[in-house]
């Protein structure tokens, strides 16, 4: 994985912002320049590292793979407009957006990788790492928070030994949050492996998480 060095931060961000208007031209720019511009978009420290261009050792997956995306790409006639639809579908199928997958999508939609990554990293629901075996998501919407989601988060963080928004190192469970599922009548809510559990208490949620492990 690529780690950004703050000292490498380009000096002229304003220039980069102007350039971001002309994303279509990225691909016509020399490889170095392209890399530079793409890199700026991923520069923010909260963002995951951008996928890097790989030349020689493209994996077999990249060349032939992602067959499951063919139908949705065809349905949208490979129009760049469909980027988010395609990414949603891709994440549903492959569980996360790998570097290879993003590159595949970029090539098929005729978009620069920078724009594909820039868009994907903007939205909260896209993930760039393989999910853990289990998932526990606490709703932290207003109603759930008023009724006690904070206590659930604290208890879960303590039980799992990880902070909200991270995964256990052994890949056993992700602990995440969602801003309102719109099912507030049953607050506070916790989603465990896709199943919404209503009116949770510290005891019930700990029991559910322990039963997973």
């Amino acid at each position, binding site marked *: 994985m690529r780690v950004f060095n703050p000292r490498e931060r380009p000096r002229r961000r304003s220039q980069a912002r102007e350039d971001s208007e002309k994303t279509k031209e990225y691909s016509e720019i020399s490889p170095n320049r392209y890399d530079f511009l793409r890199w700026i978009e991923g520069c923010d420290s909260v963002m995951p590292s951008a996928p890097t261009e790989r030349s020689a050792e493209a994996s077999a997956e990249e060349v032939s793979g992602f067959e499951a995306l063919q139908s949705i790409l065809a349905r949208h006639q490979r129009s760049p407009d469909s*980027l988010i*639809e395609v990414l949603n579908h891709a994440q549903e199928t492959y569980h996360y957006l790998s570097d290879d997958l993003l590159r595949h999508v970029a090539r098929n939609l005729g978009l620069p990788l920078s724009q594909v990554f820039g*868009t994907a990293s903007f939205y909260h629901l896209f993930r760039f790492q393989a999910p853990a075996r289990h998932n526990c998501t606490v709703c932290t*919407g207003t109603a759930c928070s*008023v009724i006690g989601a904070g206590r659930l988060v604290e208890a879960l963080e303590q039980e799992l030994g990880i902070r909200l928004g991270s995964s256990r190192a052994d890949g056993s469970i992700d602990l995440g949050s969602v801003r*309102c599922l719109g*099912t*507030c*009548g*049953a607050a506070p809510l916790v989603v465990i492996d896709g199943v919404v559990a209503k009116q949770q208490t510290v005891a019930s949620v700990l029991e559910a998480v322990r039963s997973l492990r």
Partner: protein
Amino acid sequence: MTAPPAPLCLRCCTSAGCLASGAAELRQALQRAVSCLELVDRIEIRGVGCLGPCSQGALLAVDPDGALFAGVRAEDATGLIAALVRRWELEAIDGQRRPLAWTPGRGERLDTSRPFFARQRRVVLENCGLIDPERIEAAIERGAYDQLRRAVQELTPMQVVETIYRSGLRGRGGAGYPTGLKWSTVAKMPGDHKVVVCNADEGDPGAFMDRSVLEGDPHRVLEGMAIAAFAVGASRGFIYIRAEYTLAIENLRGAIEQAQRHRLLGQRLFDSSFEFTVELRVGAGAYVCGEETALIHSIEGKRGTPRPRPPYPAEQGVGGLPTLINNVETFANVVPILREGSDWYAAIGTTSSKGTKVFSLTGNVRWGGLLEVPMGTSLATIVQEMGGGAPEGSTIKAVQTGGPSGGCVPASELNTAVDYASLQELGTIMGSGGMVVMDHSTNMVALAAFFMEFCRDESCGKCVPCRAGTVQLHGLLQKHLAGDATAADLAQLEALCHMVKDTSLCGLGQSAPKPVLSTLRFFREEYVALLKPVAARATEAAP
């Protein structure tokens, strides 16, 4: 010999709220029981949209009794069917009708004359909870697409715009812009290609009106969009919906497909030259995409960042085409207005706000759920009377409306009649209709910090006041909560709130400080109580 008993219909709520309470299992169990006893012809098990008091799920209604049961579980299914069969047997003996004497094991029978039901006026939700949203035939039976047919065959686009204009309908997404005016602006734009967009990116935490409408009666929204398209001269439509609403997405997908199959959407509708196709666009989790220019970017597959207006979407929207953007509930109001006439609609509500409004009532309240009331109903009626007030042992402190873009109405102001103007005077907004009730244990500074954290996380980062301002505001609020703040910090908090409000690019930033300003207005003493005592500061400074 008596006449055979009327067929029964068990309406089983299958919206997301009840699904979390095991509604799917209940429905299956009922179906299994009915088919085992070979009663399929006599008892219909119907999955329907939201039945109202979601906090009491899973809900089940029995027709024609009109009985509503709460807290029904799958294991209650056989008992209910047995009770129904026993009643038939008894009625067959003496021919007398009997009330249904059955209560679920751990649930209860709800009294439908309670204010929660009796004070409602269902216009948008008239079919919600009655029809099976997965079957277009059920919607058509209740008159779906009749008004579209009438508009296309009998009315001119101008007449439709005029009707909506005269009804006084205002946008239900939050800002309350007159819908008729918006329609006529788009209708006047030159060009053959226009777009209609339905904003179903209901991101305000604590709000689920749009989800419930889409889950319970998707054809209502599709028909409203099609009528709008006819009125403004558009041929393409998009529904932008948030990815969290999986069931609403599923129901909408099905509804669009069925409507196309029935030739109610598509080309050459009702033997005219009018055509309208709808595409679903699923978001990927960005609150800012509820802002119309950001939403347009997102539909175009780009980052959901807003841009300055003008040009307004009515001039340049999706793909640079004139675009009409309305909220789900706004579109859902179109059909009844056309059917009953603009005068009928204008007679409901207050002088400045016409019609009804759907609210989602949640938080520290006994009867939470989905309800629809005429505009001008007081908050006290909604929260105290319909919602039953705070649970045993607590009192209501405030009601939060409008989500992170709104503010808090303190308990002392609950007599306010809810409309666009009165809420604005109180420093909050109607918003999309989320209402979160807070009891006396709620720390208002922590609540303000909660919303500020939300806005900080959701700021798209395009303009500085919002990107940097929300971080600073959240920091200042945290400082208050930690007990480290001074009077100068409080003054800075207030000043910064006004700066962010006045200088941000889009609605997210402009309204991000509202929860802080509103709590400062009504609960200032809570902020002041958190300030570091002057003595402590003096001793710190001394050495």
